[in-house]
């Protein structure tokens, strides 16, 4: 049964690949049908080699699989094994701390990640600000490597947290730095088990953060920035620091190479800041955040909080055209990509689309071993008036209401496969089951007989098999749903057993964080104030 599915995949791979001979255009369409590699012709392959040899390379590889290793596919994953694979990256966290004696408006969050790239290029982060109120959730989708996404996931929240600090706190921080005393703690990370370790800010990064707060101090604002401003500045400041760090002479070889990799790879970012009933979402790129809303009549709806920054967004097209001379109108977006190469039109890093040609050349001429670092200098055609790319976020404010039940943040790997409505429906379904599950056993039957009949009932309904984690459920459906939106076990198994080099052609890295709100405490805000 699963072998038919493997044939489906292999045949479709074979067919698509067969059309590749025509040139890169078909190849790229084939990709974007199922999934889009964010960078094209970039980074990995030198430009001269790029069109047919690139396809040819893929071709050989794919044929190698289809012809000789077909029989070796092990698609017979048992449901348990599938669960194991899907659940490997999951985590759940309850928010227990009170916020000025009111339970936090965030009840808990569930998160999961499934890699397609090897290594995974998505990152995620959750942290609470310790000097101000607020919980931050971020999804960072890297491209051209994971260096940039890693750096942004490690550093962005610090910039936001510092931006929000009052003048007094900043002075305190600066005083501590000067007298070499321990700093006030800035963030409390709620790490996911499996996530790569956040380096608790290396000294260079700290120095740059300090410069930032010194500038904030110079502004002499009593209460710190507004959240909108803070998010706006933090994104841009971090991106400019990423860009400047590599321009400054660095002595340490490791830091230097890392900085280069960070600047020459890219990452889109979407983060939410929740403080009481104030929800801010900042987005740069094509990650997405949506809100699941239950109206008073019980109907569910979806409220998107971000707009994808890509070629399908008219506002972005207009912005790009506005920022560049009219002569470039036709070349800014080609084949639905920025300058024909990059799908998102806002991102961190990617200095290839930000710096002048001269600057790129002069930096790379400083004797980096670009080969080893997996970096290629590449200038897309029609590169006249950089920068073409910005990390400036679009910030959305939403005042949380008791009917706002959950927030889903996810990388485009999820949104490529599921619509906003699908996602809300799946989370709602998950909530319903979890509620049933919970209420049943939380108010557990008083006596053994009732307990037994309840357990037998649950056993019969197969409830135990359901995902405990909404993010896992979303990922399961994202890769397991067929064209008609139905879950297909064979397809799911097939998608999870794709060989490493094929996986990325059928699915992207998927990272999902679902944040549940506490309607009662949100309601209390309205009553109280």
């Amino acid at each position: 049964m699963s072998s038919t599915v493997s044939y489906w995949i292999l045949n479709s791979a074979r067919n698509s690949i067969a059309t590749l001979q025509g040139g890169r255009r078909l190849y790229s369409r084939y990709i974007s049908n199922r999934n889009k590699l964010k960078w094209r012709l970039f980074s990995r392959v030198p430009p001269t080699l790029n069109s047919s040899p690139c396809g040819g390379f893929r071709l050989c590889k794919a044929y190698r699989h289809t012809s000789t290793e077909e029989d070796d596919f092990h698609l017979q994953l048992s449901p348990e094994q599938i669960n194991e694979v899907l659940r490997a990256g999951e985590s759940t966290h309850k928010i227990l701390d009170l916020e000025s004696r009111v339970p936090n408006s965030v009840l808990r969050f569930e998160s999961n990640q499934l890699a397609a790239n090897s290594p995974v290029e998505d990152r995620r982060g959750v942290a609470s600000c310790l000097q101000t109120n607020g919980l931050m959730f971020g999804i960072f989708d890297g491209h051209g490597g994971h260096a940039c996404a890693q750096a942004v996931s490690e550093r962005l929240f610090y910039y936001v947290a510092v931006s929000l600090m009052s003048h007094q706190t900043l002075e305190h921080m600066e005083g501590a730095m000067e007298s070499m005393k321990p700093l006030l703690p800035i963030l409390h990370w709620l790490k996911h088990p499996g996530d790569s370790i956040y380096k608790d800010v290396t000294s260079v990064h700290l120095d740059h953060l300090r410069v930032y707060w010194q500038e904030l101090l110079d502004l002499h604002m009593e209460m710190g920035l507004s959240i909108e401003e803070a998010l706006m500045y933090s994104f841009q400041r971090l991106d400019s620091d990423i860009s400047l760090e590599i321009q400054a002479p660095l002595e340490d070889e490791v830091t230097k190479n890392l900085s280069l990799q960070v600047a020459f790879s890219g990452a889109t970012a979407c983060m939410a800041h929740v403080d009481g009933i104030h929800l801010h979402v900042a987005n740069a790129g094509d990650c997405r955040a949506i809100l699941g809303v239950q109206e008073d009549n019980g109907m569910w709806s979806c409220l998107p909080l971000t707009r994808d920054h890509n070629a399908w967004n008219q506002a972005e097209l207009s912005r790009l055209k506005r920022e560049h001379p009219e002569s470039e109108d036709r070349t800014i977006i080609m084949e639905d990509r920025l300058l024909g190469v990059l799908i998102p039109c806002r991102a961190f890093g990617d200095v290839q689309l930000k710096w002048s040609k001269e600057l790129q050349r002069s930096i790379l001429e400083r004797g980096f071993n670009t080969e080893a670092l997996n970096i290629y200098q590449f200038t897309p055609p029609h590169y006249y008036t950089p920068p073409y790319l910005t990390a400036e976020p679009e910030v959305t404010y939403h005042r949380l209401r008791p009917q706002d039940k959950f927030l889903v943040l996810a990388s485009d790997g999820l949104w490529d496969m599921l619509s906003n409505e699908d996602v809300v429906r799946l989370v709602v379904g998950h909530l319903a089951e979890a509620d049933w599950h919970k209420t049943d056993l939380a108010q557990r039957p008083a006596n053994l007989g009732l307990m037994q009949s309840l357990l037998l009932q649950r056993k019969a309904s197969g409830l135990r098999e359901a995902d405990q984690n909404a993010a896992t459920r979303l990922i399961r459906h994202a890769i397991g749903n067929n064209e008609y939106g139905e879950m297909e076990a064979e397809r799911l198994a097939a998608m999870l057993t794709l060989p490493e080099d094929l996986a990325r052609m059928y699915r992207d890295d998927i990272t999902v964080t679902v944040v549940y709100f506490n309607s009662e405490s949100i309601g209390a805000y309205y009553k109280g104030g």
Partner: protein
Amino acid sequence: MFYRLLSIVGRQRASPGWQNWFSARNSTSAAEARSMALPTQAQVVICGGGIMGTSVAYHLSKMGWKDIVLLEQGRLAAGSTRFCAGILSTARHLTIEQKMADYSNKLYHQLEQETGIQTGYTRTGSIFLAQTQDRLISLKRINAGLNVIGIPSEIISPKKVAELHHLLNVHDLVGAMHVPEDAVVSSADVALALASAASQNGVQIYDRTSVLHVMVKKGQVTGVETDKGQIECQYFVNCAGQWAYELGLSNEEPVSIPLHACEHFYLLTRPLETPLQSSTPTIVDADGRIYIRNWQGGILSGGFEKNPKPIFTEGKNQLEIQNLQEDWDHFEPLLSSLLRRMPELETLEIMKLVNCPETFTPDMRCIMGESPAVQGYFVLAGMNSAGLSFGGGAGKYLAEWMVHGYPSENVWELDLKRFGALQSSRTFLRHRVMEVMPLMYDLKVPRWDFQTGRQLRTSPLYDRLDAQGARWMEKHGFERPKYFVPPDKDLLALEQSKTFYKPDWFDIVESEVKCCKEAVCVIDMSSFTKFELTSTGDQALEVLQYLFSNDLDVPVGHIVHTGMLNEGGGYENDCSIARLNKRSFFMISPTDQQVHCWAWLKKHRPRDSSLLLEDVTWKYTALNLIGPRAVDVLSELSYAPMTPDHFPSLFCKYALHVYNEVMSVGQKYGIRNAGYYALRSLRIEKFFAFWGQDINNLTTPLECGRESRVKLEKGMDFIGRDALLQQKQNGVYKRLTMFILDDHDTDLDLWPWWGEPIYRNGQYVGKTTSSAYSYSLERHVCLGFVHNFSEDTGEEQVVTADFINRGEYEIDIAGYRFQAKAKLYPVASLFTQKRRKDDMELSDLHGK
């Protein structure tokens, strides 16, 4: 701005990093901790303040060792001890386990009196229910074993069960076993009482102290590194329960202690309307996979489910095992089973579902003894959820082991050294314990093989033999063929093949045996342990003469069967040694001797000797040709003349080639494959005892008729010689005897296994150690020891040949007694066929 940034970077380079506040935060907790000075040295450091650690401390201090430190990472009696269901049950499968539990029962009984600490000890008795006839047979076997070591128990009818416990539904029962002296007790309080008694005897106890690792120098324990400082010590005892595995691996010289935890659930309820009496017997319904005891007027009930949940595979992040989740869905089958057994409980109010991890071992037996790798490193762990029952006895044996060098009983079945290195991988353990935990309540039938964690070690011929229908058993991780199923024959599925009666392979083994007797068979015996012992000078012989009881000064190429004895004259190993040349010897021992024998040789060879030891087990494949035509086959294959003493050893890389040659040459002589079941039948009917099964470190050569393999007058001393000389003078107190069952119907009667009581003139005199059907005698043959207990005092008296010969014998198989003829020597008729000496002797070697 860009320039400003650069200048600040330059200036601030030396500024301290952000790490400061992290360290500041950490230091506050350190300040809070109590500063309690550990002693800097001690004779013994025990790690673990559960029932095992405290029991070892208690017994060591009773035996006069005073300089003992006990360390507990959390609080005393936390861990599994705290969550234990508190059932003390003596109905165990192994005699040694019965003895440990019996001792524990007696110890706990008087503990309150001794220490003044209430332990909640209540003698409730326990009832083991049988829903099937097979279960009843299993209970009857246990019952027979309990009775002969003085633990009262009886098989009772379902009606009697209902009288003893009014809540039980007995309609589906076929019988039960009642053990009236079993008890319930609070295990945590027992541990505290033992600790308190130990502490009064001078043992120093420190809680909230974690052992980081054990310091080892030259293969010897030198001390312990804890989070509160170092302690120098000579002995270390690892009683860390589920953390024992991790702790063992934390050494520089790792000690592998194969055990793994599984979640274990039991239910607590509120009291019944008329609260249950505290004397209400404990119920074990193994077919329903549950146990039920009274608990504060209500019940406590748990079980061993079919689908266990192993935990902590990744290691010891969890220091205390609180906060494990309830899993009602997982508990449902056990709950249903409980309500089937006690339907009236339906209305009983739930209090809690307790999740307490229990530790299991790869063979369902606990682990004790000294590490083969590190001297002075002792282990007592892996209790397979019987920690409370074994705690007292196991602690006593381990204490004896440390103080005297050996325990008062043979504990080989529990010895850490029974495991090899391959049995300690996390993956292996995780898989195996998932099989072991349900096995707690599965029917234990003869010749059971584990299904998981197999094929760890195989012969190079494995695939070849497997293709020819071999069915496999495992010994010490090594796969060995049991028998070969002919292509036209089907055997029963695993579950259906479980039986106490005649097994389905009877005819298959018969034809293999017949072929061994009439033509020639080849058995792959590569599993047995092979060492090479060499020295640069002439020392090898000298050293070996000291280590082994037989005279090894034989011509090169000759083979000697000998025991490796301990000071008491008991067999540490029963092996064959071939002299390869003047300075090197080749030693062949039973498969499961690989670790034990190695450790023994390392420990007992003279310190300054240049004796080189090499384990060459994996280097050689061993083929055993059995049968009258074996010589014909061999002489056709070899140009060298076949002498009876020629040693047949072949290099592994040619193994398949040789096997093929043997098979093709042997064709005209009717050669075929045979397995270990055929071999066992052959060896038992010829009265060949096997080490580990029939004989052990408490058996001397004189007690099993092997005087001829001991050269008391070989011109030099050897280990155990004095004891043997003395025994020769005084006579032996037990004697291995062969029994031929007379009135036993092979097709209809229960088969003997081992452990069956032997009665002489109606008096219990010992137990069988192994048994097999002899296809030649067409009778069952059992081997077993005959003692001579004084009728008045029960004391052991000298056993003479006359005593053996002048008796009427019966073997008790699950309560049925069968008449048996006792023999001190093999049946002569079996040897009338002219056969070569080496056939017999080779088959003698390696059955185990």
